[in-house]
């Protein structure tokens, strides 16, 4: 079996890796690049725990092949904070207890960041529908939605 050579950019750094043709982007991030912040909850694009952005577009990394990352710009949860400075969403999730077990948290944060980049002033309904692809079993979503809306308000005020 021969592996494919792929060059891509992950969280602003150029990365090269070899992968098998059937490996997903999620497999590559976790197993080849050591970026285990993206989680596999289903492998079928239903739970959103593996959410990343590719060229700015929010996707489930379990539904894209690793080989398709060639030449793309990928952002994962590991790139969300700037050094030691947390993204406002990350800070707010801690402050408002918007996580319990934390397994869905990376995917939800990546998805919420993507929402606020497109829509800095989402309604509760817009936030709920945007995040409908990210399953959380612990929280009932209440504190998550509140944290996203409050972060949006803070960021609007700051800008």
């Amino acid at each position, binding site marked *: 079996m021969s592996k494919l050579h792929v060059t891509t950019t992950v969280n602003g750094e150029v990365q090269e890796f070899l992968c098998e043709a059937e490996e997903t982007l999620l497999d590559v991030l976790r197993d080849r690049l050591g970026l285990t912040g993206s989680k596999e909850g*289903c492998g079928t694009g239903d739970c959103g725990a593996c959410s990343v952005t590719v060229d700015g577009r929010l996707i489930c990394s379990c539904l894209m092949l690793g080989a398709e990352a060639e030449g793309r710009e990928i952002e994962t949860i590991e790139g969300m904070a700037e050094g030691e400075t*947390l993204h406002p969403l990350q800070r707010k999730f801690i402050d408002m207890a918007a996580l*319990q077990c*934390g*397994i869905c*948290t990376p995917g939800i944060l990546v998805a919420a960041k993507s929402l606020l980049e497109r829509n800095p002033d989402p309604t509760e309904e817009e936030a*709920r529908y945007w995040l409908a692809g990210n399953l959380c079993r612990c929280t*009932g979503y209440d504190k998550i939605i509140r944290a996203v809306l409050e972060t949006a308000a803070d960021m609007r005020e700051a800008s």
Partner: protein
Amino acid sequence: MALDTKQDTRTEFKIVGTRVPRPDGIDKVTGRARFGADMSAPGMLVGRVLRSPHAHARIVSIDTAAAAALDGVHAVVTRADFPDIPLDAALADIRDNCMAGAKALYDGHAVAAVAATSESVARQALKLIKVDYEPLPHVTDVDRAMDPGAPALHEGRTDESVPEDMSPNVMARYEFGHGDVEAGLKKADRVLRRTYRTEATHQGYIEPHACLAQMGPDGQADMWCCTQGQYMVRDTCAAILGLRQGQVRVTASEIGGGFGGKTTVFLEPVALALARKAGRPVKMVMSRSEVLRATGPTASSSIDVAVGMAADGRITAGFAELRYQGGAYPGSPVELGAMAAFAPYDLENVRTIGWDVVANRPKQAAYRAPGAPMAAFAVESAIDELARGFGLDPLEVRLRNAAREGTRSAYGVTFPAIGLEATLRTARDHPHWGAPLGDNQGRGVACGFWFNFGGNTCVSLNIASDGTVNVTEGNPDIGGSRASLSMMAAEELGIPYEQVRTVIADTASLGLNDVTDGSRVTFAVGLATIEAARAAKREMCRRVAGLWGIDEEAVVWKDGAACPAGPNAGDHDPMTLAEIAAIAPNTGGPIAGHHEVNAEGAGVSFATHMVDVEVDPETGATRVLRYTVFQDAGKAVHPDYVEGQFQGGAAQGIGWALNEEYIYGEDGILQNPGFLDYRIPVASDLPMIDTVILEIPNPGHPYGVRGVGETSIVPPLAAIANAVSAAAGVRMTDLPISPPKLRRAIETA
């Protein structure tokens, strides 16, 4: 000697009751936290399981030669690799569930496993394993499984409580209650008799089971896995594989949800058996389909209820016969359901009968208040229907019959001070109760009860020379318990929260801790943490007494410092914890506090839930508009995470009531093993979930804490069903109330 060392429950706090940031927060928002599947080891192999495609089949033979010969395959195991060690029945069932013996008992039952150098080689190897199955007739429905002629899963497993002429699928019978139900029903102005059904639902944790196991030639094993109890994993794996417990060290990873489903093992003994055979570390991670097909859902149920009510709303008698199918092995939580069914009510005449039934489905695992939600669904639906039939306020009817201090509960125990009436009164006085409703909208209420547990607990509290404190405890943190324990340690020591760090020990580092279940951690581990802190304080006071040259009794601990007290103590400046810690080597060595206990006195818990829904008569779809939880938490240590438990339990209950179900085809194969078709609530399905925390201190805990995690899933099934029935004008008795089911019911009404 356990003595009645009753101490006053503390009511004034500086840290407990505040909303501090959780210590694992940054790791979890940055992706650094390491969950079950996030650990690797040098030379690691990938393990995969071959699963039965039949609902019920005799395993005639398994040929693994071709798989074992495949390049890259390092081990293949079947049941033959699990030594036939005599085990008690419960452990033997776990072994058989982890790796099938003579028969495959359900679709997805493990029959073989391989360890290979890569995922693709492992998958290829599974295809090369030849299993000769002799398919057998199967049964998946609880009532059909009880038919005398139903296909039998086991022979000779029925216990002495079951009449002889019943199906061998009936494993046990339980009966609880007091009074004379028939006489009580005769006194009623109306007797309602109905049968209610609930489908099996899965705990639905987002993190699939994962395990990394290794064992050296010296027989020393190390495991890393996501579990609700690392000691349970150690003891179970050791028993099944014939190892000594001390040989097996288990480290619990961060855990991505459990809800009871990770209180047992599925992969762990298999991973260890593969690692032993291969002589290399083996990592196993389940797919979502494996999680749904082969790990514990809860029981499905069929429940007959008879409730008699006088026209003034008094319940004259309550009866329930509960049939729970708990999958292929004995142990459905029917006895807990039978005990909990009428627990919220003060009844003169009450009787419940529970039947534990097996069927060709995965072995059930505990799910949040196991057994209680289905029972509460049946009883709370019946009470609601009777109350509405008499034109009575369903909250007032519940208040009229509510259990209180001194009530002899349906399961026999006389209740101490409990919070049910408080939740009902608060609900009645809440603006939600009087808010207007629109067309096709309905409001439902229901009560719920859970026992709450304590259990084996061991905590070590160590003070470093700079005055920082480490609490070492043995229970995986599912929803913020490290924060709560750090808070209680800081409170007791009188130091800032930031000065305490709580870590979770592996099995070699601390004595036995029972699994994180029964809403026990904040209660029992909290109690042990407080006692460990008290032991450390006593030691520090003793050291300071030596320094000051006075009696130990003349030194007391106050505001984080040792202070002189009493007439003969003399004049000394208080010494802070950090000052005492700095000179510990000179005063007797390191300072630590420990506490070991089998904690009792958890204190029962009650809740009342209120929900508004809107139904669409054309599609049968139900939308949840407003939801409020009222629950007694005892002292809420970290209110954010108490609210989170209330909200999460309500959301799971909403899923159980409206969407979630195990769907089996005529072939006994699970038809919806994925999150697309097994649909748990998503953000757009739910409204905000309001919470009202009532704090009625639990006298069994020094800070008044009681468990909060499980009770919140008990009322929602009935609360939703009562709301939908009110909105649609038709009584819904089968869960889930999926759109096609509701539309049919409206059309035929």
